[in-house]
């Protein structure tokens, strides 16, 4: 099948397409053929597809207007199922075989749209329509919004998991160049020459920018050949990274640029292998913005009918893609650049009906060139209205006065099927705006150019309003050399001779945005400013009549620039119309500020590989795989995976925990306590420093001894606790909670470095170095004795709260006789390489005693039976030691204060009726209170009840045969024996008695056992 048959607007190969290589694709369910190098938009235009979507509010048929990121109408949904992508611009979607796309807007189809019936009553939906109509009653807003969004058809998000993978690269460079048009290419080359690390990124598949559609010559080469040579030159530098298909979408503080690289989107809906998209997080010393400019369409009546396009886009489709999107062209322009479109169209062999120029005197080089080709040029006129249904049929033109503000004569018709307009150019100042630079209105270029730089950046070429090719090349080269120098590379001088190119003499453009109609804006057929959100000139003027003056308010009231195109085409026209309505200048009116993202960005790329098992680190102890081999269930404690309990076949969690608890109380259990934070502390002032950090004193702690301590923040509230051991002279080991380890080390460093630098003490984390196996229970000593023969384990030689160096299972070990269960306990510490083997030896040694591995749940039950607190569970950052009934841990006679001491005398911390830690025993022994349950004294009171405290820990104690709970209760220590009540969400009311928080072995005989 010949391409000419199916693609009526294809004239051959363009600079980027191969007309001999057809590609099949479908759009809105219909099959079409494009060619290699096409975008979806160029392929649709080649096939004469006029209507690509329906407008947001009025559901008017819409066709393709632009050729890149500025496209407001060709918004499509790509593919279906898990990998479907909503809201892509057809102008940016590269065609691949089998591509399936559909319009996001328009139901049941774009050619017959039910919503269009609403569109027929368009005047019923003025700006602010939603605010005016749907605000009341307020509670219905969510309902309204749902239907509005559905009707608006903003595309469908996939409901299945994304099958693709995404990743991120952290990049650093001296010079980042955004945009690989003429300015960007020479900027990169100048910077590269200095040896600077250079990254040059461009959102398009090919470098070259506007040159890809240019017929100009540079250094005697066709523009596209010059681009090819430049790219080869850049590739030859090993200090240059070229990133095509990469959009710089956000410019953040510290010269941080986020760039999205589309790695496989041009090949298919999902990546066959590798990552679909890659987020480059670039930290650049210097940035050159060479992002180009967007041609501004003219606003006139019915300018949204399919077949009205930007003039430069028409040129691009002709030269770059070999697609001439119509047969009879009328151009309306305020400047010279659109004449190139007329010339290109003419040379493509199709009819230029007329170039309608709003200026009355015309003498530029391009004008002359067009006239020389016999092209009909009509001066002093404008296209005031397009006519047609789903495609332009004719243009209405009329003579205008000198400043283009009024029609001065009668209108006449020009039959045509394409109207191309050019209202001048708007620099792409988006990235500059992201930095906070305030755009400046420039009368000369009739556009906003970048404001004073807020970052280490400069703009070059069209994005700062320089539109001649020679000017872009000169500015780019200079910017590249300057950026390199400021990044510390080169002398700032340009090295390469400036490329030479023809210059056209151009006459000034006219500052015209809204082409007047014979009727006023409010009476004329709709003159569209923002195509995507259906904002009209009349709408902007209405907003002014209703009292809006600020450009930001008008934006929000009318939705101007709120679409996924961020108003790249419409915003400036909107500002100009607003300024005119307000009777002030555009400079006085100002512009809204652009924010990231420049174009929509996938969430996948922002997440990168931080998904699934890599979402958050899982920290493992050296014994982790033994635990999982034993079928342990794990609990997250910070980032650690700790065994929670070890269920045996058929056991519930409750069964397993009961079994584990009883094993410890009756014989022996073993716990992996490796996750506890451990900090090695050395220095002549170590004891003094530690004594200032804990509430109690360590000055007299002798080598071989351990002591339990509590740390407070300055406000007197408990923030960590643990045992500290004296390892030798000026040498200590501090244990912290598992979750608190990093925070405690930072805390120690903070105080040493900022408050007490004179104290000589060093801290080193040894958490990961040690594997800690806690062997606990009445038979613990017997187990240890089997694998350790160089420590005298007798109670006299090795009492409770002592530690010893020794050899356990053949490995040098530190053994601590400390206990969190209330039983006889030995905590065996060995370097982690040996952790697994020593653990297994302990298991083997304990076999005859039924040694039972237990997890954190059993640990919690056992310690709760003893009334030992867990910081972070029984405390919440608002508990003092007194609240925890732990005044015994406060050093009364310390020479130096300790952190938090002063706050223990605050009126709030000494007041009566603070919540205090007590035990709770449910009247019904089998009832286990839910943790977090609120406590009231009077169960019969009205809701809201007066809450007197809450349950912090609660378990069933197999050892005691009833449930136990720890709770904080107002004035609890004075209320021993009183009844309290816990009203539960399910309506039950559980009664309990306040008891001592120590349920088991209150005298501590078991851990002292000889």
């Amino acid at each position, binding site marked *: 099948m010949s391409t000419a048959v199916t693609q009526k607007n294809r004239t051959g190969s363009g600079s980027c397409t191969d007309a001999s290589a057809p590609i099949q694709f479908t759009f809105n369910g219909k099959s079409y053929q494009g060619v290699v190098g096409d975008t979806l938009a160029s392929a649709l235009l080649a096939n004469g597809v006029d209507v690509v979507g329906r407008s947001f509010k009025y559901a008017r048929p819409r066709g393709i207007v632009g050729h890149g990121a500025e496209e407001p109408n060709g918004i499509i949904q790509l593919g279906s199922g898990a990998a479907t992508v909503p809201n892509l611009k057809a102008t940016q979607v590269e065609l691949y075989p089998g591509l399936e796309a559909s319009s996001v807007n328009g139901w049941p189809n774009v050619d017959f749209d039910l919503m269009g019936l609403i569109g027929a009553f368009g005047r019923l939906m003025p700006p602010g329509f939603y605010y005016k109509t749907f605000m009341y009653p307020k509670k219905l807003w969510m309902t309204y919004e749902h239907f509005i969004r559905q009707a608006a058809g903003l595309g469908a998000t996939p409901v299945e998991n994304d099958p693709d993978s995404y990743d991120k690269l952290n990049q*650093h460079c001296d010079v980042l160049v955004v945009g690989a048009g003429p300015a960007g290419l020479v900027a990169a080359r100048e910077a590269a020459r200095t040896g600077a690390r250079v990254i040059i990124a461009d959102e398009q598949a090919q470098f070259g920018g506007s040159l890809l559609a240019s017929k100009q010559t540079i250094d005697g080469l066709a523009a596209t050949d010059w681009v090819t040579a430049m790219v080869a030159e850049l590739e030859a530098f090993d200090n240059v990274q070229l990133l095509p298909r990469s959009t710089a979408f956000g410019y953040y503080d510290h010269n941080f640029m986020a760039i999205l690289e589309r790695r496989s989107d041009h090949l298919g809906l999902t990546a066959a292998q590798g990552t679909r998209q890659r987020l480059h997080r670039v930290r650049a010393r210097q940035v050159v913005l060479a992002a180009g400019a967007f041609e501004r369409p003219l606003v006139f009546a019915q300018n949204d009918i399919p077949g009205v396009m930007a003039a430069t886009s028409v040129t691009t489709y002709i030269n770059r893609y070999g697609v001439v999107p119509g047969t009879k062209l009328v151009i309306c322009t305020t400047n010279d650049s659109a004449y190139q479109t007329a010339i290109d169209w003419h040379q493509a062999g199709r009819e230029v009906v007329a170039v309608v120029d709003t200026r009355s005197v015309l003498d530029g080089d391009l004008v002359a060139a067009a006239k020389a080709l016999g092209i009909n040029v009509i001066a002093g006129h404008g296209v005031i209205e397009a006519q047609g249904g789903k495609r332009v049929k004719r243009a209405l033109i009329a003579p205008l006065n000198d400043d283009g503000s009024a029609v001065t004569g009668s209108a006449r018709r020009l039959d045509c099927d394409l109207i191309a307009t050019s209202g001048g150019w708007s620099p792409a100042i988006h990235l500059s705006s992201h930095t906070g630079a305030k755009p400046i209105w420039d009368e000369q270029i009739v556009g906003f150019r970048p404001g004073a730089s807020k970052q280490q950046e400069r703009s070059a070429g069209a994005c700062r309003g320089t539109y001649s090719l020679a000017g872009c090349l000169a500015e780019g080269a200079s910017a590249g050399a300057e950026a390199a120098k400021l990044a510390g590379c080169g002398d700032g001088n340009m090295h390469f001779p400036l490329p030479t190119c023809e210059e056209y003499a151009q006459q000034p453009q006219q500052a015209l945005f809204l082409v007047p109609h014979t009727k006023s804006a409010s009476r004329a057929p709709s003159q569209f400013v923002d195509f995507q959100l259906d904002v009209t000139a009349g709408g902007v003027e209405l907003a002014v009549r209703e009292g809006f003056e600020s450009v930001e308010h008008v934006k929000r009231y009318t939705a101007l620039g709120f679409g996924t195109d961020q108003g790249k085409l419409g915003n400036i026209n909107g500002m100009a119309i607003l300024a005119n309505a307000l009777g002030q200048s555009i400079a006085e009116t100002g512009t809204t500020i652009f924010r990231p993202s420049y174009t929509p960005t996938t969430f996948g790329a922002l997440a990168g590989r931080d998904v699934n098992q890599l979402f958050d680190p899982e920290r493992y102890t050296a014994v982790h795989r033994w635990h999982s081999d034993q079928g342990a269930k794990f609990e997250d404690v910070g980032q650690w995976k700790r065994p929670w309990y070890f269920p045996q076949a058929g056991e519930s969690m409750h069964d397993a925990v009961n079994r584990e608890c009883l094993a410890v109380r009756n014989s022996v259990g073993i716990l992996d306590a490796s996750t506890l934070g451990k900090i090695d502390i050395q220095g002549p002032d170590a004891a003094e420093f530690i004594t200032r950090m804990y509430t109690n004193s360590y000055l007299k702690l002798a080598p071989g001894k351990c002591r339990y301590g509590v740390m407070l923040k300055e406000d007197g509230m408990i923030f960590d606790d643990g045992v500290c051991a004296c390892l030798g002279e000026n040498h200590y080991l501090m244990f912290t909670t598992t979750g608190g380890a990093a925070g405690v080390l930072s805390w120690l460093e903070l105080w040493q470095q900022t408050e007490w630098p004179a104290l000589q003490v060093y801290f080193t984390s040894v958490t*990961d170095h040690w594997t800690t196996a806690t062997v606990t229970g009445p038979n613990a000593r017997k187990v240890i004795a089997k694998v350790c023969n160089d420590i005298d384990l007798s109670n006299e030689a090795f009492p409770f709260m002592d530690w010893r160096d020794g050899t356990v299972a053949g490995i040098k070990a530190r053994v601590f006789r400390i206990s969190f269960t209330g039983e006889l306990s030995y905590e065996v510490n060995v370097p982690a390489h040996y952790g697994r*083997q020593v653990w297994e030896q302990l298991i083997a040694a304990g076999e005859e005693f039924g040694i039972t591995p237990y997890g954190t749940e059993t640990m919690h039950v056992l310690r709760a039976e003893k009334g030992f607190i867990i910081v972070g569970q029984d405390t919440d950052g608002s508990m003092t030691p007194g609240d925890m009934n732990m005044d015994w841990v406060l050093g009364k006679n310390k020479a130096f204060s300790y952190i938090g001491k002063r706050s223990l005398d605050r009126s709030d911390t000494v007041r009566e009726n603070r919540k205090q830690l007590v035990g709770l025993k449910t009247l019904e022994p089998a009832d286990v209170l839910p943790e977090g349950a609120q406590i009231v004294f009077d169960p019969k009171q009205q809701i809201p009840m007066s809450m007197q405290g809450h349950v912090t820990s609660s378990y069933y104690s197999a050892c005691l045969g009833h449930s136990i709970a720890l709770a904080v209760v107002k004035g609890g220590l004075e209320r021993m024996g009183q009844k309290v009540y816990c009203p539960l969400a399910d309506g039950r009311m559980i009664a309990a008695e306040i008891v001592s928080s120590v349920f088991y072995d209150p005298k501590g005989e078991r851990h002292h056992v000889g």
Partner: protein
Amino acid sequence: MSVDSKVQTPLHYFHGVFGRPGIESDSSKLFNTDVECGLVIKEAPLSAHLNVRGDAGDAGFCKAVADVLGVALPTDPGLCNHNDSISIYWLGPSEWCVIALGGDAAELEAALRAKLSGHVSIVDISGGQTLINLRGHGVETVLKKSTVCDFEALPMAKPGQRGVTQSTFAKASAVISNRCDGSYDLIIRRSFADYIAQWLLDAGAEFGCRIER
């Protein structure tokens, strides 16, 4: 210190694991040296790792360390001095990491303590971390995926001296050091080793990746 099978380095369970497109990165896959890999991760197991703190301005301290280790103490930020077996990594103004390949930490600590006096700290952290080397043409991309630090800006590696920095690594942390041969050394914490190994296998998959002992 003898290497026996009961001793488990932090990457014990990953030796021989490789990941590449289409191949599961799990430990059931056998080590296969025939596979061309753009990222090869090799652990330097069971070495002596000491954390040393002291006053860099104290010439006596610096000389004593150099005398015992045979390597000058780097006092400038970002430098690692080394010979064939011992490397001293600068970690901070008063902090260094000493790694002696195949060394005995207790002996090394004793030797240092015998020569050092005053306010110093020497801590054996051999069990708590491991040294891994990353080589292959994919290594720089993998590092860019993993760390925000500009490792290309490290002091140039030359015989006897390398650059070193501490930074985030994925969502964990690592000491990163360059080598003359273009490869990089990482020092990673034991408890994060599984996570980092999985991260590296994933990040290196596009090049083909294996972990060897």
